[in-house]
């Protein structure tokens, strides 16, 4: 059953009668919270957890949803982001689902939310103390592309032996004169664990460093939770002579709000065929537009 259908079918009455608050049972929530605490205690370390069946196909954000459901309280204000957008089918469905099992208030404003679940982006607006950002993670293992064996990647983490990833970056530079990893950029957390930040663009990686906010990462299919607590050192891998770099949008601005300091999506203008740019974070774009409107 699709998530949207499931949500439609549950009327207020049956929901209350059949499901506990936030859908998953209290025992399961407690387990996820315990694992989350462990993840917070060891920044960047992947903690295994007993991933539950959800009315969503695995790989569609079940890890993030379970984290959200185990953390959410009646007073939370929820925001759901899908690749920067609050309005994609996925974002709408997940928001409806969580609402239908919690009745919490939802918002699209980053600053108004207490709990944000996201896929592939971090909001442009700086997040604060007291907010939590939950990431949906498809592949939690940062070393998977360089080492297929789970036993071997575990050893590498245990011994902090990340030379294979460094070698991968070296080879990239030899072949292409630069590091070509666009998203899922490997990050060193707390000078100890290599971490996959989920497929966020490089643009978002610096936001994870010494942040006020708690970042939680949930992988449903791979049954892993990990975390970056507030004020943690987060360093993208890079060489002295080939340092980490974010995407370059120099000379480009959002066609709608004019922002020149946001991650931009590229598209073709349907009429002119020109390449144009717009904010990937639609809530940010709106905010900038509104502020401009208020100014003039």
């Amino acid at each position, binding site marked *: 059953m699709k998530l949207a259908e499931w949500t439609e079918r549950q009327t207020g009455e049956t929901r209350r009668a059949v499901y506990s608050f936030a859908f998953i049972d209290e025992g399961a929530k407690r387990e996820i919270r315990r694992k989350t605490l462990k993840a917070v205690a060891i920044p960047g370390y992947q903690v295994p957890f007993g991933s539950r069946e959800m009315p969503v196909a695995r790989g569609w954000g079940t890890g993030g949803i379970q984290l959200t459901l185990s953390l959410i309280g009646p007073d939370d204000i929820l925001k759901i982001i899908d690749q920067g957008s609050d309005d994609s089918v996925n974002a709408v469905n997940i928001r409806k689902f969580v609402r239908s099992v919690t009745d919490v208030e939802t918002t699209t404003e980053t600053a108004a939310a207490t709990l944000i679940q996201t896929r592939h982006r971090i909001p442009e607006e700086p997040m604060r103390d007291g907010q939590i950002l939950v990431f949906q993670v498809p592949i939690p293992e940062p070393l998977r592309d360089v080492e297929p064996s789970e036993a071997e990647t575990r050893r590498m983490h245990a011994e902090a032996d990340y030379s294979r990833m460094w070698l991968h970056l070296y080879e990239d*530079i030899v072949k292409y004169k630069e590091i070509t990893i666009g998203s899922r950029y490997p990050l060193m957390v707390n000078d100890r664990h290599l971490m996959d930040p989920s497929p966020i663009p490089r643009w978002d990686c610096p936001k994870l460093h010494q942040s006020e906010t708690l970042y939680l990462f949930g992988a449903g299919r791979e049954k892993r939770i990990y975390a970056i607590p507030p004020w943690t050192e987060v360093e993208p891998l890079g060489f002295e002579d080939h340092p980490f770099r974010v995407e370059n949008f120099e000379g480009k601005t959002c066609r709608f709000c004019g922002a020149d300091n946001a991650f931009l999506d590229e598209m073709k203008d349907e009429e002119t065929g020109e390449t144009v740019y717009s904010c990937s974070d639609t809530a940010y774009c709106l905010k900038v537009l509104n502020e401009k409107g208020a100014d003039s």
Partner: protein
Amino acid sequence: MNLPHPILEARGLTKRYGDGCPTCFDHTGAAHGRNRCPDCGTVWACRDVDLTIHPQEVLGVVGESGSGKSTVLKMLHYDLEADGGDMRVRAEGVEDSNLFDLTSFRKRQLRNAVMGIVYQHPHLGLRMNVSSGGNIAERLLMAGWRNVGDMRNRASELLERTEVPVERMDEAPRNFSGGMQQRVQIAKALSNRPALLLLDEVTTGLDVSVQARVLDLIRRLQEELHVATLVVSHDLGVIRMLTTRCMVMKNGQVVESGLTDQILEDPQHAYTQLLVSSALV
């Protein structure tokens, strides 16, 4: 002779495949001409082998195929877990205790810091799909190097030393001839300036003319770098050319050891006499 402290000292090196039984030693070893116990089927790949290498010294291990030479070398490099024995290495930062008792993490660190190895089969020592420079860089990265330019300089220097055309450093060894692959392996083994170099049948399987060139290279590197080296080979010619002292192995045991020249001129053990005479044919 007044020798300095040995850089490597190993005692009682033992490796078996099987559980062993009370009568194993009545049937196996050089005196019995086999390493497999007929009662319990255990193979004693190497038994109670002692060896010592001094700074700047090149020690050889020779013997027929299956006599346990590679087993000895692989235990020293932690490729194989020893079933018995004690290993000490005297080098900076190395603990003064049995190095077989360390954690696997520490063993890996130690191996990266003080050893270099060249295997008979290049695919064991090299990542065939990673550039030659990258193969060398990997060891430098393990040691904490974080500057691409510095690593490339060091890799060029090593490839030049080992006579690999530097303009091919960004090519994967997969495309190289056997002799050139061995030279890349040697460059990689030397990249961390190892205290101990381990060479396992490095020229076996190469064409004779290529063999000679690789042997010349190793000899020249020995003269320049003076790295303490263990040379394992079934080929007496290789042992004669590279080593000053050697040990002869048979069925997992050492049957004779001493100065290479003396052993080749005047072998004492019947097995060595056989080896020497057949090598001369």
